[in-house]
């Protein structure tokens, strides 16, 4: 991640339109990640990885963003991991403007075992599901690149190896097991929005509402596009071979790992960067740029953080963000029910 010539920028150049907020948040993300990597470099050791997710993991960091992170452990338990965790936390806090969230999803120790072994079933809690899929779609290792890669590939392997339909010769090559979990993540985030509204007596409603409509939705979009990728590129004879062999081909795991190495917005941009889809891309990226513009503006962001649901109806900042979210939604409907994705969306996204 963090390539200076990233897909969204390429798309922007080809379309001939600037998206200054996307660019600025990406630049700030790259800068912040570089600083944090330097700060933590002496904590790097085998079997653990300091992982960031959230806005920093999506490349959408603003000066008012918090830093969502945890210490991922993939190896034998060592009581000293707790010391690494405390030390990393101290150093990260110095670079953060805000404390971590309240949902115990971040700033904690996370074992790879639950992420890899508990996909579905009683052990797959909301936090486990969320961490697992965010690890795939919006995570960056600040230390322990090898550990991070190993866990991501093992999670992907479980989704892909155990999905028999995915490898069927005659049929769509869509990993339904993985896709269904992205759908579950999206619905979980939407349900949790209602839960938090009740648990916090409406506090922070407006900002969470806007994020749900935009950045949370983007995660689902990136997950769906990644899952549709093998089918869309099925014309390539080399790609076809890797699905048709009886023996599972780790190239498929590697391909998904490579797709998810892009930021979610870049996954979307990569898909839309063909001449016939540039018109579909325009409203989507304009809307997303507008959304990031609101988050980048400290006054507007703070305003949304304290705005009540009752006052939102007539609030110009909220209405502007809401309008952007409607453009984003309509653009996504055009994309997913347009010529290229209509069949896959209906068959795998609906019934």
């Amino acid at each position, binding site marked *: 991640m963090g390539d200076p010539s990233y897909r969204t920028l390429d798309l922007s150049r080809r379309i001939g339109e600037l998206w200054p907020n996307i660019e600025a948040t990406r630049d700030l993300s790259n800068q912040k990640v570089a600083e944090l990597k330097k700060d933590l470099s002496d904590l790097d050791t085998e*079997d653990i990885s300091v992982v960031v997710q959230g806005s920093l993991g999506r490349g959408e960091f603003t000066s008012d963003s918090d830093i969502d992170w945890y210490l991922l452990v993939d190896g034998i338990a060592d009581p000293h991991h707790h010391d690494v965790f405390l030390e990393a936390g101290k150093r990260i806090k110095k670079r953060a403007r805000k404390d971590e969230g309240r949902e115990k999803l971040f700033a904690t120790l996370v074992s790879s075992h639950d992420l890899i072994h508990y996909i579905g079933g009683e052990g797959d809690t909301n936090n486990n599901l969320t961490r697992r899929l965010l690890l795939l779609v919006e995570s960056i290792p600040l230390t322990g690149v090898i550990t991070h890669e*190993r866990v991501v590939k093992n999670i992907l392997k479980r989704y892909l190896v155990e999905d028999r339909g995915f490898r069927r010769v005659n049929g769509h090559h869509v990993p339904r097991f993985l896709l269904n979990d992205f759908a579950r993540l999206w619905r979980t985030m939407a349900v949790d929005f209602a839960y938090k509204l009740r648990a916090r007596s409406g506090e922070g409603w407006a900002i969470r509402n806007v994020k749900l409509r935009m950045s949370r939705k983007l995660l689902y979009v990136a997950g769906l596009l990644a899952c549709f990728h093998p089918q869309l590129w099925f014309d390539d004879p080399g790609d076809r071979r890797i699905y048709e062999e009886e023996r599972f081909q780790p*190239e498929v795991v590697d391909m998904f790992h490579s797709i998810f190495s892009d930021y979610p917005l870049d996954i979307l941009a990569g898909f839309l960067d063909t001449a016939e889809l540039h018109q579909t891309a325009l409203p989507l990226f304009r809307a997303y740029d507008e959304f990031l513009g609101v988050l980048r503006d400290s006054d507007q962001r703070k305003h949304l953080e304290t705005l009540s649901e009752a006052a939102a109806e007539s609030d110009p900042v909220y209405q502007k963000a809401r309008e952007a979210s409607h453009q984003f939604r309509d653009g996504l409907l055009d994309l997913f029910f347009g010529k290229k994705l209509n069949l896959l969306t209906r068959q795998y996204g609906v019934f």
Partner: protein
Amino acid sequence: MHRLGFSTGALALSDFRRALRTLEEQPVQVVELSAVRESELIPLLYSLGDLDLSQFSYVSIHAPSYFSPKAEAGIFEALYEIRHRGWPIVVHPDTLHDFSLWKKLGNLLCIENMDKRKRTGRTVRELELLFQEFPQASFCFDIGHARQVDTSMTEAYLMLKKFSSRLRQVHISEVNAQNRHDRLSFVSTLGFQEVTHLIPSSTPVIIESIVSEDQIGAEICRVQNALRGSVARPKAG
């Protein structure tokens, strides 16, 4: 059927003569003479003329895995002296500093993929950079290291695919949590079986599992089982 053999270091630490004696009675066709410790190298090289290696159709030498940069030229010269034997010289890439020296070995330089403690040579990406520096070098695929770095076996698979033309020999053992070379277990065998179909039967396989003499036969059986690669998945449908 693969040609199998042992690393002398796995059988008798620092005592290659004893290791070779142990192998005389075993059904092995290949051997790796280990000088993993720097102090082992010169005694080993001086003894080469006296050793009876007629049992083996393939011999390689494992260069020291740690030495100071000051010692590099001397170690290289000692190994370069035996190039006429045509034996691959297995190196850990993190020990190579003066690339111009090691390039002189051409395809006898056999670069091994590393375990997770190292900072280079662990993944396909890192190995690609090394092979750009050493375009003639051959490849020693350490399946235990590859599994330790990536238990999904994706990296192992990609290494065997991408470097198939360079593949000279294989190291096999279970690399445990303390980075020691253990006997193969049920779980490591399952992992290995996912990729061993990609290892040509002509490629020599060197067992690095640390075993006593009475455990050699059982370990050979375990390795043969792992090399059978029997994990074709059930047909989807």
